[in-house]
């Protein structure tokens, strides 16, 4: 570890003007960059070249879930490894037993473009939201009419683009087109903390898997990814580098790094401790934007869904592409590895979902 240099310029409390502050910010940014340069002593691909290559991958589609009448936009696994909730453009939210390929519940939302859905850790609830600017929770019960058990938890001023439960059923974190993220209490619908800092729509969020679980990362249309402290609502780190909108962010299972998928057809890996980008996953032959990504359980493999209907699998460390998965007939919109890492599920605008193993 190296400690950062002492910063001499103390903020002048009185004569703050926008130009002076902007100048100072630029100044500080330069210093930061300088420091990052000094600390950047080695490239990941160089170090990783000594690693053994991964064994060949033979992922095949094992289940094809058909049932949506619109583009599938979001999916989330339940912790029991086999259930799944998916949402689609036509306003339907379906709870599947993916293992037996059966639909268990179907919910009709009062809105189209349900862009976010999440399975509660206990498995008794799902949350979803979209163009209605809300995030609603539904209790999963045997009765037919689930909408009677609906409760709106989160309210944004623009569409809800992503949502996730914290470690319990009691808190939901949402990201929205109004450029904020927010933490909500499920029971009361109370806003616990809001996170301001993005300059454009938030497209993806992910919770840190590290023990304390007090941080999360968000990525948005302002081409940057921000890391937040959930307790204070402060942005603690920011990462730039992409040339276009970010579509998804995902933590490495170690919690020390995260990856982003962007419309500029690349994915990048950022390390929190080194405070910089440490790898970029791009290829000349990949010319379509990346929409979604996830890691395998160990973090060694990175699965990325692209707008060109394909899924690419990268070696996270070596930064080389291992293989491509074809099968979907329209763009891949969402992608998740099951919690125990045994399967990968992809959802697409061709109305279907595929489980690969």
């Amino acid at each position: 570890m190296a400690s950062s240099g002492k910063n001499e310029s103390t903020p002048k409390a009185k004569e703050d003007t926008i130009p002076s502050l902007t100048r100072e910010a630029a100044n500080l940014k330069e210093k930061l960059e300088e420091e990052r340069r000094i600390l950047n002593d080695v490239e990941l691909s160089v170090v990783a070249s000594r690693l053994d290559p991964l064994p060949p991958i033979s992922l095949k589609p094992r289940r094809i879930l058909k049932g949506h009448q619109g583009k599938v936009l979001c999916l989330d696994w339940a912790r029991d490894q086999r259930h799944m909730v998916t949402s689609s453009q036509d306003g339907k939210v379906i709870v599947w037993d993916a293992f037996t390929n059966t639909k268990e519940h179907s919910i009709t939302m009062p809105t189209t473009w349900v862009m976010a859905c999440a399975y509660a850790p206990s498995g008794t609830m799902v949350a979803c939201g979209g163009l209605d600017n809300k995030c609603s929770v539904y209790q999963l019960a045997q009765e037919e009419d689930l909408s009677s058990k609906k409760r709106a938890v989160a309210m944004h001023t623009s569409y809800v683009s992503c949502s996730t439960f914290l470690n319990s059923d009691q808190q939901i974190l949402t990201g929205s087109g109004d450029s904020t993220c927010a933490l909500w209490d499920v029971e009361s619908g109370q806003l616990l903390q809001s996170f301001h800092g993005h300059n454009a729509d938030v497209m993806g969020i992910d919770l840190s898997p590290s023990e304390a679980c007090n941080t999360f990362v968000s990525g948005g249309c302002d081409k940057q990814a921000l890391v937040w402290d959930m307790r204070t609502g402060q942005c603690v780190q920011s990462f730039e580098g992409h040339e276009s909108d970010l579509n998804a962010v995902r933590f490495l299972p170690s919690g020390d790094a995260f990856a982003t998928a962007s419309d500029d057809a690349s994915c990048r890996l950022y390390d929190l401790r080194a405070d910089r980008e440490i790898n970029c996953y791009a290829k000349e032959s990949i010319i379509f934007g990346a929409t979604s990504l996830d890691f395998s359980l160990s973090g060694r493999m990175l699965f990325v869904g692209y707008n060109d209907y394909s899924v690419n699998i990268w070696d996270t460390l070596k930064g080389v592409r291992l293989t491509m998965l074809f099968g979907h007939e329209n763009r891949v919109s969402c992608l998740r590895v099951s919690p125990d890492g045994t399967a990968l599920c992809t959802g697409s605008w061709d109305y279907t979902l595929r489980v690969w193993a």
Partner: protein
Amino acid sequence: MEQLVRDMQHPNSGIPTKSQKVFLSFVPCAFTGSDLAEWIRKQLKTDDSIEAMHIATMMYRLGYIYPVDTTKVTSIKDDNCLYRFQSPYFWPSHERSHDNTDYAIFLAKRFMRSKQVTILEDYEQTAYNNLQRLLSHKWEFILFQAQEQNRIAKQRKTADRIIMDAQERAFWRIHYPPPGHTSALQSDIRRKNSYACLIHQNNSLEASRKKVLFLQRRLHTLTMKSSKAIESLMKHCSRYAEHDPMVSGTQPSNPWISDDTTLWTLNTTLVETPTERRIRRWAISLRELLADATGRHEFAKFLKKEFSEENIAFWEECENLKSAPQSSVPELVHDIYRKYLAPGAPSQINIDGHTTDMTQQCLRNPSRFAFEAAQLQILLLMQKDSYPRFLRSDHFKELLRKAMNANPRKNRFFTFGYPFNRHAKVAPDLTPFAMRRKESEDSQVEDTFVITNGGGLTHSLSASNLKDFELAQLYTHQNGDSHHTSADNNQLASRFGTWQNTAPLKPQGPKIVSTIDVPPRRMSDSSLEVSDIRSTSMVMSVPLPSIQTLIAPWEAVETSKPL
């Protein structure tokens, strides 16, 4: 994408095109599928012909190229079929506004001509009829337009006319695809809304001030060298490789492939005998152990024997507090305080005065993070003290043995390899291996040479060496305080009396040998039951150029804690 298409059309470096004779008329500037594939492969430096075909197909779907002789193509193949470039006028990026009226004109045009040559396809016919009904108010206008355009077209040369016609047809086919096909051009609704509500925060004074503050804070936080971060990333990946079904497969089988859910039944949240792999995962880190309900349960059982179960109970309650609904937070906070922290509490936990003060301040305004500091301290305490002892305990070994007996197949796991854990295979007995691993786990970065210099890692424990060590164990009362960095360690020390630390073994041979210390243990423990296995795992002699590179695991934990 567009750049790519332009490159393709480049007369010299582009795809070779030539005129082809089709239906008694010439189609200039056409190219074959194989040429296209070849070009993409060369230009984009990809060896994968499937990928090249995929890119070509995407170009077709997006309407940059179209097939010459038939419209019924779903994907482009590496063969001699002919294709042409769509004229830039029809490229999707131009976002030429097109609506039903335009489509109706196009269909009407075709319909008028259809008496002679072409017949509308079924879906087009239906669309035509529908549009006629829908746009009846301006149907005359549409017919007139169609007639007019046909008239103009007739004045052109035949070749031009056919090309124009084909381009137009390709265009409409993309935008109004036949049923069963989805158009590739549908856009994401998010994009449309995007930027509409862009907030111009950048310009406000408050935002600039915030940005400066943020940057200053950033400058003051510690940043790790890339090399270290990368090393630890790589270590994480290789350590978990055996637990990653995508990398090393699953035992007994992947349910998605075999339709056999044994794996899931074996790994349900609370089980009597957890699988061996699961137990090994607990040995990776305390976090892994606590993340698993069964692991937590076993750990609590162990702590109970050691009369320190209040630590894990407190930790669990704090976790519960964090995930509790807001309404019950104040109540829970006070419950926890009464139970664990208040003077004379029934199961008081041992934290230092400073933390107690901090916690008491938090109590005035009870939030879900009130016990954050105390919880962290307890966690560190468990990590340094109970956790290593848990891994060494008979309780843990018993669990491991049971798991191996339950699934004898798995014993052999290490012998058929996945490429990462080469060094694991060296260890003949699993127990020392687990120990060794545990030790290397705790020091996140500093111990990397153990892994990387794996070839040089020697268990140079000859019999005499071992004997020496046992003696050292019994008779030296080494003061371990020098290894401790934080204040709470002193406090820890006072709790347990004198630390008994492993004496650094002096090298027996000419090489410089340093020792990896295991976390300190209580005197009574070690002197009573020092078994062979234990002592082998306690000290490992590692040939090294210098001694000072080695840092005790608990120090490493502190220094490598991210920020």
